[in-house]
């Protein structure tokens, strides 16, 4: 366990409700063949460490109950948590907001040496895109090749969304997840609605 300063940032008093970066817009947008929705208030942890370190991999597995994806651009997920490969030493963990500190603590419990876990839950929100024309929306939004032949289920990439960046994931056949930065969320939403 490192000496990193952590605390349960989610542990708010009962009367406090969090506000998503898209609270000022409607939380879903439906047009013919496309459904765009926000999934607010998830927990996000950035994990850093050495993928070649067996102990590190084992520690992550123990803490999250999931293998650490070491293949580039892969996404591994369980019912509660997902891990997305971002770089050889960086992963994005997504979990229910209320359990974020539990996983963060578990990681610190299990890991040692040179690693880092950073709570970035306030910094992101997730959009989902589904429907027959979801691909058409993506073709207009990212230069990454999202054709099913190239972007199969279980793939996840960090790339561009118009003039912003996005973590683009395909957790299952029928749905795309787009994780966008809080401050760009309004732009991303308006862009996607514009091209739907």
């Amino acid at each position: 366990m490192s000496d990193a300063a952590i605390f349960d940032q989610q542990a708010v008093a009962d009367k406090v409700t969090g506000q998503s970066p898209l609270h000022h817009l409607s939380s879903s947008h439906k047009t013919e063949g496309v459904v765009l929705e926000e999934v607010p208030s998830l927990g996000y942890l950035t994990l850093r460490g050495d993928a070649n370190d067996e102990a590190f991999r084992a520690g992550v597995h123990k803490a999250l109950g999931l293998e650490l994806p070491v293949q580039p651009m892969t996404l591994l997920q369980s019912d509660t948590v997902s891990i997305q490969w971002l770089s050889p030493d960086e992963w994005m963990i997504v979990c229910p907001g209320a359990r974020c500190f539990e996983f963060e603590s578990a990681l610190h419990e299990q890991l040692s040496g040179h690693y880092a876990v950073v709570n970035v839950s306030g910094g992101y929100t997730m959009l989902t895109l589904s429907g027959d024309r979801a691909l058409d929306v993506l073709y207009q939004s990212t230069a990454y090749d999202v054709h099913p032949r190239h972007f199969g289920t279980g793939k996840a990439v960090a790339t561009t969304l118009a003039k912003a960046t996005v973590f683009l994931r395909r957790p299952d056949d029928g749905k795309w997840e787009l994780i966008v930065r809080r401050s760009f969320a309004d732009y991303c939403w308006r862009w996607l609605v514009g091209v739907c």
Partner: protein
Amino acid sequence: MTQPNRLAQGGRVNRDRPLSFVFNGETYQGYEGDTLASALLANAVSVVNRSFKYARPRGIVAAGAEEPNAVVQLGASEAAQTPNVRATQQALYDGLVASSTNGWPNVQRDVMGLFGKVAGKMMPPGFYNKTFMAPASMWMTYEKLIRKAAGLGRSPREQDPDRYEHFHRHCDVLVIGAGPAGLVAASVAANSGARVILCDEQEQMGGCLLSTTETLNGKPANQWLSETLDHLAANPDVLLLPRTTANGYHDHNFVTLHERVAEHLGDTAPEGMARSRMHQVRAKRVVLSTGSHERPLVYANNDVPGNFVSGAISSYIHRYGVVPGNQLVVMTANDQGYRCAIDWYDAGRNVVAIVDARPDADGHWVKQAEERGLRILKGQVVFDTKGTKAVQGAWVSAWNAERFALTGEAQLLECDAIASSGGFSPVVHLAAHTGARPVWRDDIQGFVPAAVKGQLPTGGCNGVYPLHQVLADALDTGITAALDCGYEASRFILPEVDDLVESAPLALFEIPHTKATMRAPYQFVDLQNDVTAAAIELATREGFESIEHVKRYTAMGFGTDQGKLGNINGMAITARRLGQTIPETGTTVFRPNYTPVPFGAIAGPHRRELFDPKRYTALHSWHEQRGATFEDVGLWKRPWYYPIGNESMHDAVSRECLAVRNKVGILDASTLGKIDIQGKDAREFLGRVYTNKWEKLGIGKARYGLMCKDDGMVTDDGVTTCLGDQHFLMTTTTGGAAAILEWLELWHQTEWPELEVYFNSVTDHWATITITGPNSRALLREITDIDLDRDKFKFMEWRQGTVAGVPARVYRISFTGELSYEINVQADFAMHVWQTLFEYENKYGLTPYGTETMHVLRAEKGFIIVGQDTDGSVTPEDLGMQWCIGYDKPFSWIGKRALSRPDTSRRDRKQLVGLKPLKDDVVLEEGAQIVLDPNQPIPMRMVGHVTSSYFSPTLNHGFALALLMDGHNRMGEIVFMPMPDGQVHEAEVVGTVFYDSKGDRQNV
């Protein structure tokens, strides 16, 4: 209404759907399936424009993208005005309104035309450069007149009502051009399993198959065409894009395609539809099946309306059922001209003669013509045209090719149309976009694409013309493309076509006249820019020997058609004048676009609110509701000030400033860059990237840091907090956040990979709420469990706890000089905390303030803004921040070495000082230049400038920060700022701290 040139039957137009359109104020009718050009020809409209320079009457000469003359203004309303639309590529729609782009008072009777006739001889290439020089003072007047004659169409004056889309596409094989070659190559690749995109610029796919009389599998071409297209359309991995022009071929097989989605439907796109769409395609292989352009021949008065390239006539007959005249003379140097004559004859009109420059042609098409009893004049040429606004006849003579001279008696053949064919030029434009020069092939007398990785020219584009050879070539290409992309090539059965023997073409570009080139009537090479053979000859006479020089001197190929018809002829004419071959003369470089593309299509949806992202903090909606005005800082929208009622900016800022100094203000500081830094070497790393020391900063403490580049110039600053022994939170300037993170990674990844440290952006995660002012402690105490006792929670420390029930880190740091707390909470909860603070608004006089007040307050304390008080040429020493420089740190930190270079160690550099205007009510202008002697003549010696300047409501006078040469040694001196209105502001040089110089207030 009759359409005199429309055949009773034939063509691919829908005669059940007549369409009405207006050209130059007259109403005409055409049919669905027409282009504007075919409809005009059907209605026997011969003059469609006036030429650019000589204002000569011009008609339609071609049927596609190569058309130089029929460039019109489109649009019934102001907002729908579309300049320079090529009539041959504009589908007709009901209600279309178009007009000629030149001609006054109208295209039939044009005043400039008279001028052109009289003064044309005075306007050889380069005449602008040889005249209008005296007197010098008159040039701008002359220029106004020159400009009046400029341009083709006009820009609309209102905003475009349409929208445009962008699509990113990826495929294995992109096939450009859906003629027979493209269809075969695409089919083979698609059958093999490849992802295929097939595009074609025309309304319908099929290319030459749309107007050929040849049969495939013994049946009309149309049958094979529709079967093939149906088969492709049924394949889910094939994208068919008709009306789509490949306009730019960029590096690494990146091709831009412009799909005209609604341009054929009306002036504006139907509801919900984009006007056009840019497809940005990344392909593993690009098949160039772009075909070829037929070259017209250069002879005198070859621009008179009624002159056509021969293939265009076949197209008008077969595709639109339009014959543009009654009496045709064909001028050809190959068998194509015969096909045109046969089509004309078979349409029931009279062929006056086929004039063939070759003495002995006898191929299939020649025999066909002979069978029909057509008059053929072999070994003869058309060297001049009779007529001005319409062809009345063709002057014909025998000639000697070797001597390049007419030999016989000239005879006039009366006619109303002349079709000419000088052979074919492969459409190599796209292949040349990435810099590869086309290669000349003598056997086909044309340029073909150079070999470039990933690029597969086929068919006409590759110099292969007979249909059966085209199909075979395309089959090979399709197989190659499939194999290259890792697929096993599939079987594909080519249709059977006849191998029609053609007689050898003659390499012919220009035709001699009875007079020498310079004295002959105009022999046009580039119709759009009125470039003649004489102009080219003159250019070479004046010493322009490079083809690029000739092009630039004559403007050849600079038009909106980019010389598709004229360039090769121009090169041939240049080559002849220089006594060179065409390959020795070389080509000019083709560049994107192949055909012009609307700005709006290229800009796409990135307009107005989507032009650039607007970044918002978690508190933005509150600021909006409170009536804040916003300032653009990088991509962020930050509250600038919060006016109440009709308050002026000055009054609002004064009120906000006083609230902070006397009570408590609140600022949304969330935009500051924040970087989480962890690892056992984090502290060492900070020591290397900051100018000051970090080894002793204890947990719970914070410190200001200054960052330089290795040239010693200040690049960023901010407070970094020690969260744990190996855990820090760095803050950066708002604008610098992304660049600084990349900067840290750069040094870590490339220079010091051995240091164990991780950097992660938490800018968006943390919302930062600053409360500052004497009441801030009392206010915060209302809603926090953190012990705020002054001795327990000191200046430059941080504590963890809850604020308004939300877990928070609170930093006691100050950018105003007042007692301040920066509350950091996860952004989702920021609004709750902010609103809870405002429950105490009246109790403590809590006042929201924006960046302007922040600037005033920080400047009163002499705190710098990087980028405003620095400009990339300022060192920490220049700023007087020696206290922030760890000269004796063991590692030679970034920027240290540069500070001892001769110029950076000069004592008289520009240094940051304070300025106090001698008159209290004067607020110096930011950017004002400082002089020591206001009475010196211009140019004055400037010794610095004002970087920040404000009125201080606290001090009740103006004050400023400035960079001043040797400023640190000028304390007490008076300096001067001469203003444009003649006033000279005077100010005393003082220290940079104007308020609370001992710093007591932040320590209370």
